[in-house]
């Protein structure tokens, strides 16, 4: 079979270049946008993804990690009764007002009270063991490197949270928060920092399972009991997704992503389809001749669609190479960018969909390839 579509694409590459560039930049724009949004909003699930807990227990209706309410401490024994559970620990979230030594005014901080033991689940992936051990000290806190200027402190200095004195004993990295600053301390310190007398239980209980793959089933099993007061459960994956989605759509960023995806699709498809239409028009007499010789319109359409496919694939290749380079550059400059498989797939679907729509539009101009017009 003579590869008409590919040979034409290679021979007349200049003709197809605008379409490939349009597809490529559409893909690149979308890729970077998704990576940025995921990077920025991914930090809202850091508490979950940076920890090794498989199941989370919290107040029913909780919309994101940062908006929890206290539950009864008795729930812990209910959770521990389940044979699949290996370990349970409380996690206390306190919203605090930070007053540092520097001239910073008040800073809104998210205090995470965690088990400072060596086997602690919370932040086990984000906090080095030596730093965690230092939290055992009363009123000791760890803050993130990215927030030092904002908090106006350095290691060894003191400040107050909600009026209680704290001392910075360590500096972590990769614990950047959205809309505030993360401060880590022990469970005991966190209880002291909480000035609301109504809060007398943990905000969450986090559990490690013997078999992490059963998180969904165990979370479902633990749900629904009311004897210990209101609570509900999530698998860690579900709760992380819940938190990210809450931020994406609560802030309007999600709508922004979808809106831009639509614009990118329209602009890309407009340029690509025009280029493909011009390419079809440039060969319309040859197509008409093939049709005169009995080559069916369906076969000619396939040629146009195949060209659209290759334009999409080549544009995608260019976007991937350039995108990876830019993402590496962003990473090296501490710009939060994250790319996961679903997001990459979404980009691929968008770009190939754009190419397909353009190909279908170009196919319509094949109607001009009427062999009778060749006879004058």
């Amino acid at each position, binding site marked *: *079979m*003579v590869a*008409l579509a590919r*040979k*034409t694409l*290679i*021979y*007349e590459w200049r003709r197809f270049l605008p379409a490939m560039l349009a597809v490529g930049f559409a893909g690149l724009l979308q890729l970077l946008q998704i990576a940025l949004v995921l990077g920025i909003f991914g930090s809202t699930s850091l508490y979950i993804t940076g920890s090794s807990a498989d199941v989370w227990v919290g107040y029913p209706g909780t919309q994101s990690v940062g908006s929890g309410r206290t539950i009864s401490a008795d729930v812990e024994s209910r959770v521990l009764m389940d044979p699949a559970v290996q370990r349970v620990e409380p996690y206390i979230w306190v919203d605090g007002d930070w007053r540092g030594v520097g001239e910073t005014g008040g800073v809104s901080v998210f205090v995470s009270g965690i088990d400072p033991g060596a086997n602690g689940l919370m932040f086990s992936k984000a906090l080095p063991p030596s730093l965690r051990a230092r939290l055992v000290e009363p009123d000791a806190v760890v803050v993130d490197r990215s927030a030092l200027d904002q908090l106006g402190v350095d290691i060894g200095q003191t400040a107050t949270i909600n009026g209680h004195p704290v001392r910075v004993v360590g500096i972590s990295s990769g614990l950047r928060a959205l809309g505030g600053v993360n401060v880590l301390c022990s469970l005991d310190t966190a209880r002291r920092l909480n000035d609301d007398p109504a809060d007398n239980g943990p905000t969450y209980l986090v559990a490690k399972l013997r078999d992490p793959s059963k998180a969904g089933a165990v979370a479902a099993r633990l749900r629904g009991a009311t004897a210990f007061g209101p609570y509900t459960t999530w698998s860690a994956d579900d709760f992380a997704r819940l938190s990210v989605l809450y931020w994406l759509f609560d802030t309007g960023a999600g709508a922004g992503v979808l809106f831009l995806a639509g614009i990118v699709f329209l602009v890309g498809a407009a340029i690509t389809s025009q280029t493909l239409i011009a390419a079809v028009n440039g*060969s319309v*007499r*040859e197509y*008409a*001749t*093939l*049709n*005169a*010789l*009995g*080559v*069916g*319109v369906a*076969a000619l359409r396939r040629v146009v669609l195949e060209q659209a496919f290759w334009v999409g694939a080549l544009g995608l290749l260019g976007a991937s190479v350039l995108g990876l380079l830019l993402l590496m550059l962003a990473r090296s400059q501490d710009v939060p960018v994250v790319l996961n498989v679903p997001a990459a797939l979404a980009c691929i679907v968008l770009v190939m969909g754009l190419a397909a729509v353009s190909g279908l539009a170009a196919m319509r101009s094949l109607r001009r390839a009427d*062999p*009778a017009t*060749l*006879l*004058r």
Partner: protein
Amino acid sequence: MHPATASQQISGPALFAEGISKAFVSGQQRTQVLDGLTLGIEAGELTLISGPSGCGKSTLLAILSGLQKVDSGRVHALGSELGQLDPRALERFRLQHTGFVFQGFNLFPALSAFEQVELPLNHMGLSRDEARRRARVSLEEVGLAHRMRLRPSELSGGEKQRVAIARALAKEPELLFADEPTSALDAANGQMIIDILHRIAHAHGTTVLCVSHDPRLVVHADRVLAMEDGRILSDRRTHAAVTQSKEIPS
């Protein structure tokens, strides 16, 4: 040299048009191009339709080849009535039975001469080897054996038209239609093209119908139909063409 001439006389004409009429409407203007024309074209000979531009000869070719529908009348080609076929069936008919050569060569710039010829054969359900064999034989027949790897930009006008003829010929069609095949060529190349068409008719028993206003072609045709204002003015047979036909370079 004429294996087909004996059988052609006992069978009917390969192409037969019966009382065909065709008019074109442009705004308020209605132009009757063909009016009740009846015509038979025999297999195994080169029939030339000549006449001034606008006389309806190209329209007649489009109708006889099934590219255009008639307003009234009937066209029989190889025993099928073209008016009865739907567009799909017409495409299939053209694929199986007809070849075309146009005034513009209409070759894909990206393909070599060999690929131009092979491409339509791919759609005929031939095996790859058979398609390639036919493409090679056809290009050899039009004297382009040594040029078959070249793209159109590397070929002269005459060579391009020979590629176009090879593309039509490789399908081994019973009907071959040519529309002004020499008008874009100089005398020598035009001569070569008409010789090839002539030889195809005689060697393969193909019905070759050529439309041209080029007076140089008249002497090479087996039969010349002179057309004017949608009517056939004269229908002449000439035997000079056969003896004057030159060997084709290969």
